[in-house]
């Protein structure tokens, strides 16, 4: 089992859970299983070509998978995957800004 930590911005697509556990041998398999279980999450993780979106960072434990073997990175039991999305908020503007946090 690996645990996938879900950031606040994406919890609305996973029944408000902060973590989801899946059985998977690789990072790619884990994310695929996750987005099969929660279909509305898929478009937030993958682009139209089925590639992971470039503004979504995936970490295996504390390491960016881009510096491991990306989606082919093997997983061990008890590993933690973290989805780290872009957030821009500074708690600053309300109505006057093109806010994207």
């Amino acid at each position, binding site marked *: 089992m690996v645990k996938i930590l879900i950031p606040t911005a994406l919890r609305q697509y996973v029944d408000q859970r902060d973590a989801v556990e899946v059985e998977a041998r690789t990072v790619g398999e884990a994310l695929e299983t996750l987005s099969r279980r929660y279909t509305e999450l898929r478009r937030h993780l993958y682009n139209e070509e089925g590639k992971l979106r470039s503004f979504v960072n995936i970490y295996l434990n504390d390491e960016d998978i881009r510096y491991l073997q990306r989606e082919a990175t093997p997983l061990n039991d008890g590993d933690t995957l973290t989805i780290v999305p872009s957030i821009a*908020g*500074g708690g600053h503007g309300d*109505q006057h800004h093109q806010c994207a946090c």
Partner: protein
Amino acid sequence: MATSITSAPASLSHEEILRYSRHLIMPEVAMEGQLRLKQARVLLIGAGGLGSPVALYLAAAGVGRIGLVDFDVVDLTNLQRQILHGTSDVGRKKLDSAVERLRQINPHVTVDRYDVALTRDNALEIIADYDIVVDGTDNFPTRYLVNDACVMLGKPNVYGSIFRFEGQATIFAYPGGPCYRCLYPEPPPPGLVPSCAEGGVLGILPGLIGVIQATETVKLILGKGQPLVGRLLLYDALAMRFRELKLRRNPDCPVCGDNPTIRELIDYDAFCGIRRHEDSGPAEWQIDPREVKARLDRGERLVLLDVREPHELQICKIPGAKNIPLSELPRRIHELDSAEEIVVYCKMGGRSAKAVEFLRQVGFRKVKNLRGGTNLWAELVDPSMPRY
């Protein structure tokens, strides 16, 4: 470790020695460190949620020169988190209330005012006069602008960002360290991530993340400790948990990489896919709240579709509206009849614009977006309804 900020320091008056005595008696700060603080020049982009605690603590700590970039006016909805400003400041320039408050805390601090939006035309010139930049902005174009300008000028960028109960902090553009683009090469397309005003934020959260930014700024100035470089600090207020992820400089980064391809500032709105003033869709897809009210009063059949989240209905709603949250619209579309005239609304018109676009794509013809959402409805049609 840290970049050396100061050259030959000035001196402290007796009043300043007393004021900073709790710093001066610590060997990590002492007289040398306090003089470094006094000579330091720090630029804060944004005097809002993050900028408030940063400015307050840097002023109290005796940072000699603080620049504030903000063109905004204090709004009642700011006060839940922007502790630089008070109730009597509503309607005033944020710079006015900020400068007043900082002077009150420490008259030895010089505050530079920049009553402008940071743009590609002024960013390099403004940032060049400072040693450290603290990024407390609220939108992706400015995040990338601040990053690129800091990398080009070699100024550390003390970064913080927040969303609901969750925050991130790190230092970008530190010599040898990663930059914002190493972490996020591209921004998300507009609309995929909910906005501050639509997503909300725990008022205390910018306090905590801002204090981390202020701490890192002071450490950089003192040249003490391990700076938060190459590490992304994640904070989850609900779980009350801090985590740390490794960040690396990307040798292929277009800005800070070994062979940078971006050597001057670019059009950041275009880079972030933002079309100014077109976010609500074509004008003919919009409808004025007063027109909707008049037609309802005449007894015309209009379906009002509220695409806000269920908990927002507790704040206010337009009587008779049907609620389908935007995220559920695709799978609940069968609940709507494309033969009927539909007016979609949310809080400000952003989410409803997406709903209108989606409905038109799947064949609905008679669907319009209520201009300005419930906030404008409250202003123009029903003053008994609260704005939020």
